């Protein structure tokens, strides 16, 4: 049987629905059978009946066949789809390996953009988004005292104010008062004396936070009663570090500051302390603190954490506390007048100053990612244009434009995924670097790790980027007129105005974004430079600092003074020590402050009362740190206990209160006690910038350690060589002097200062790296634009050269075209710089947001890099050989 029309491999141009196809086939069968019967002589009606009978149940057969065919079709479609995908992938990989430079560039660019984002998002998430390890952490607020003179936002409360807030509030379902800062204490174990950090809290503290112990129990109300045995709770770190993780420690007795306490519990590992690193939690009793009439309302060292009642918002709690604060100011104008009590959500307190730098980082990383995308879109556009002929041929051979678009999307998704994976690897590296650089600048609960959330975010980012920059070339493919493309082979051709504009806009955008980032990085770097280069007011070189904690509790001032004087003599004899001094606190961002009253001066209104930084120092403090004496004298043996108290003030203090001189000999009163004896100002010394992150020195009052001893003392030693070499001999000499004397925090003054500005350094380091990254990417973008422009107009340039145009004119032509877009970019960058300047305003020191030096340097750097990037392509454009091109 002949069948000339069927070729074994031919396919129908369309595929009909399975049911119709089966019906058609069976219909044909029956028709043929009837025809044969009629030919044999049957009448048509009988032929039809016989044929149907012979066939059997037609509808049954049709149903069965339709089902078989449908399944078959589905399997086929799946196979086709997979085959297409395999083909696309194979093709994509092949074209990727062909265009090695392009692929490498694309993957590296993407990896940098995505890696930066994943790393920064890992930080941002762990600081700003992850839940704090408390029950319903968003319902927790803290109560602080804001000093009305502006010297402190999150100041501590007095015991009286804390009690009144607790008694009068209607907002908290439960709350606990605790000491604002952890304090040093001495733990005496088998291995000798350790310094431990002690946090004093009301028993309700853990219940309010909603923290369950890892071992034992948390505090009960009875733990604060004086007639029950004293208890203690260990943090997980202290349990591991001091007690080796021994579970039997719960129920045992330990000695802290010479007092025996029963360990009742161990806190979980992930517990985060609201008051910084503590080792031991002890209970305090508010009534006992209220017994001293002066310190009850006059000393500020407490704070309060509360859990909002259901239905109470943070805002209404704030109003509640505001009202209490106002009535307290009326009732106790002298003590509570200078303060306003406020509530702050716990998370805001813990995030603290890091929020702005983190948001800046997030914005920087996003800018880098935008530049990355623009860069890749540009690169893929160039590639699509250079492959136009390939696409046209494929369309001519029967590929649908949908099929081509799908191919391009597959290619760019493969690139994006490769970039995403490389980016995650980079992010891992980045986070391990960040852990070293940044941990001290971040809240204590931040643990920098790449978690699932970050991974998902990154992969989504990679895919979106891939799709986003895959779409542009895919659209161009869909629109291109294939015939004209194929015909273009014979004529001089330039790329379309449309795609040239798109590419130009992409480069302009990159330049604008890059300029903004670089300007931000420059401003921050200048601020940091201003911070670190401005004189501190003392000489930190060669100075070692050691904290010591004497074994006795609260001895008499005379005994303490003698104890320290003898210790100082012993330490002065250590070889290598050229000077030694001690102070209650070293210059740092957070220092104790006292209210001040000047004799004879009209006291300022209560809400403007001043709080002045207050330090108690030994005689040689100024000499050891190199703080110059301006007038009068510093402390000496004449400032003995019992003699009239002497005070030395800083120059900034003299400028503020005695602008016309006359400070020496004036008497002032410090502290909350209205009946405290007057103190005489005996000297003025140079200013010290105690917070290296602030440009303006604060007023400081110094008292003599002989007359105003302090519990914890920091010794400072000056040496000729490396100060750390003194650490061991000094500690040995100290323990020879008193075996129970605990010394810790041995560090150089330089390191202390460096820690003080760690929070400032982090955004500078990161933003500068992002800026460098952006500069690199933008340079690549500029290079790609000029290269593509030159390549697209090669033929035209050949013609121009053939017609007598000079090389210079050609170069001018290319430059003019590219420079226009760069100018647009710079103009857009000005807008970005303004935005960055206002965003960074709070982080800037010593520079204005539109610092001309920074702006000029940034623009010049960008232009220099762009110029280098465009040199090659422009050179190539001028060296077009007309004969080559026109042949």
């Amino acid at each position, binding site marked *: 049987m002949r069948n000339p*029309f069927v070729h074994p491999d031919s396919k129908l141009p369309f595929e009909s629905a399975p049911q119709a196809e089966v019906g*058609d086939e069976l219909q*044909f069968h029956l028709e043929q*059978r009837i025809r044969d019967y009629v030919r044999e002589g049957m009448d048509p009606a009988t032929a039809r009946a016989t044929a149907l009978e012979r066939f*059997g149940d037609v509808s049954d057969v049709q149903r069965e066949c339709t089902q078989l065919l449908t399944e*078959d079709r589905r399997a086929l479609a799946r196979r086709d789809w997979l085959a297409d995908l395999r083909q696309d992938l194979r093709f994509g990989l092949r074209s990727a390996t062909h265009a090695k430079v392009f692929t490498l560039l694309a993957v590296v660019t993407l990896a940098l953009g995505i890696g930066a984002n994943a790393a920064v998002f890992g930080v941002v998430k762990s600081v700003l988004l992850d839940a704090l390890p408390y029950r319903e952490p968003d319902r927790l607020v803290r109560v602080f005292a804001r000093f009305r003179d502006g010297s402190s936002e999150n100041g501590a409360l007095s015991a009286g104010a804390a009690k009144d807030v607790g008694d009068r509030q209607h907002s908290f379902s439960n709350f606990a008062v605790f000491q604002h800062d952890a304090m040093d204490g001495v733990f005496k174990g088998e291995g000798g004396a350790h310094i431990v950090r002690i946090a004093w809290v009301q028993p309700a503290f853990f219940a309010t936070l909603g923290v369950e112990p890892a071992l034992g129990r948390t505090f009960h109300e009875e733990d604060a009663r004086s007639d029950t045995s004293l208890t203690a709770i260990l943090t997980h770190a202290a349990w591991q570090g001091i007690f080796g993780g021994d579970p039997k420690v719960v129920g045992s007795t330990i000695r802290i500051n010479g007092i025996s306490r029963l360990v009742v519990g161990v806190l979980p590992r992930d517990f985060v302390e609201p008051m910084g690193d503590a080792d031991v939690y002890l209970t305090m009793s508010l009534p006992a603190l209220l017994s001293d009439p002066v310190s009850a309302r006059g000393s500020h060292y407490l704070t309060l954490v509360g859990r909002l009642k259901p239905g109470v918002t943070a805002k209404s709690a704030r109003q509640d506390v505001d009202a209490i604060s106002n009535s307290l100011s009326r009732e106790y104008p002298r003590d509570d007048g200078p303060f306003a009590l406020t509530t702050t959500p716990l998370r805001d307190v813990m995030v603290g100053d890091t929020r702005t730098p983190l948001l800046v980082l997030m914005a920087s990383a996003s800018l880098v990612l935008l530049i990355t995308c623009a860069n890749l879109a540009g690169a893929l556009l160039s590639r699509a244009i250079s492959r136009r002929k390939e696409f046209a041929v494929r369309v001519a051979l029967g590929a649908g434009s949908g099929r081509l678009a799908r191919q391009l999307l597959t290619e760019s998704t493969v690139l994006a995924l490769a970039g995403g994976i490389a980016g995650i690897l980079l992010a891992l590296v980045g986070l391990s670097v960040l852990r070293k650089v940044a941990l001290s600048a971040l809240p204590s609960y931040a643990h920098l790790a790449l978690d699932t959330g970050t991974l998902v975010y990154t992969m989504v980012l990679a895919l979106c980027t891939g799709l986003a920059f895959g779409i542009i070339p895919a659209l161009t493919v869909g629109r291109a007129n294939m015939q004209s493309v194929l015909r273009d082979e014979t004529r001089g051709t330039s790329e379309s105005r449309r795609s040239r504009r798109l590419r130009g806009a992409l480069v302009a955008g990159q330049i604008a974004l890059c300029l903004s980032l670089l300007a931000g990085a420059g401003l921050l770097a200048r601020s940091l430079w201003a911070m670190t280069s401005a004189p501190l007011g003392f000489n930190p070189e060669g100075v070692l600092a050691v904290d010591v904690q004497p074994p006795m509790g609260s001895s008499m001032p005379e005994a303490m003074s003698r104890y320290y004087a003898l210790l100082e003599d012993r330490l002065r004899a250590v070889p290598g020590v050229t000077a030694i001094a001690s102070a209650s606190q070293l210059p740092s961002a957070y220092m104790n402050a006292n209210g001040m009253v000047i004799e004879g001066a009209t006291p300022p209104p209560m809400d403007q009362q001043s709080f002045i930084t207050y330090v108690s120092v030994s005689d040689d403090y100024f000499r050891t740190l190199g703080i110059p004496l301006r007038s009068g004298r510093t402390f000496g043996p004449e400032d003995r206990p019992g003699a009239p108290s002497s005070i030395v003030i800083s120059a900034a203090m003299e400028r503020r209160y005695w602008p016309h001189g006359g400070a020496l000999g004036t008497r002032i009163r410090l502290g909350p006690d209205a009946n405290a004896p007057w103190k005489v100002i005996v000297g003025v010394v140079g200013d010290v910038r105690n917070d290296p992150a602030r440009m303006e020195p604060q007023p400081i009052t110094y008292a003599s350690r002989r007359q105003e001893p302090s519990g914890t003392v920091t010794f400072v030693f000056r040496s000729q060589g490396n100060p750390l070499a003194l650490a061991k001999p000094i500690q040995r000499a100290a323990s020879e002097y008193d075996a129970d004397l605990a010394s810790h925090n041995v560090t150089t003054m330089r390191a202390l200062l460096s820690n003080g500005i760690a929070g400032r350094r982090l955004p500078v380091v990161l933003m500068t790296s992002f800026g460098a990254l952006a500069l690199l990417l933008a340079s690549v973008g500029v290079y790609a634009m000029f290269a593509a422009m030159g390549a697209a107009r090669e033929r035209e340039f050949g013609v121009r050269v053939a017609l007598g145009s000079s090389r210079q004119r050609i170069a001018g032509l290319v430059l003019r075209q590219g420079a226009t877009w760069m100018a647009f970019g710079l103009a857009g960058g000005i807008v970005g710089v303004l935005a960055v300047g206002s965003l960074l305003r709070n982080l800037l020191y010593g520079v204005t947001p539109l610092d001309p030096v920074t702006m000029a340097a940034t623009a010049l750097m960008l232009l220099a890099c762009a110029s280098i990037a465009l040199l090659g392509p422009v050179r190539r454009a001028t060296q077009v050989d007309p004969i080559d091109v026109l042949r």
Partner: protein
Amino acid sequence: MFNKDSGLLQGTLELLVLKTLSWGPMHGYGVAKWIESATGDVLRIEEGSLYPALYRMTRRGWIKGTWGVSDNNRRAKYYHLTAEGKRQFQEQTSGWQRFAAAVTQAIGTVTAPGWAS
């Protein structure tokens, strides 16, 4: 005499289809007619079971159907053997022959077994 449920005869139908198509591409009706005439009308197939067999064989990749035009200018689906189909045809032919020879030999035996007395 062909029945959908009869495994043995089902296989036989498939073998006959393969044989038919070994001559060249043919539509379903042609396959039915050829089997009838080639078996001397002994095997008059119940045509309803032929088509599901064709579709199943298509699915197994033994045969492939393509639409063409019949002698009388009517659109018809022509089946042809694939490479796998040709292999199956040879395999099943020799299998059938061994089977038929064995059965023939068995039923032609004249020596009675020991238990037959």
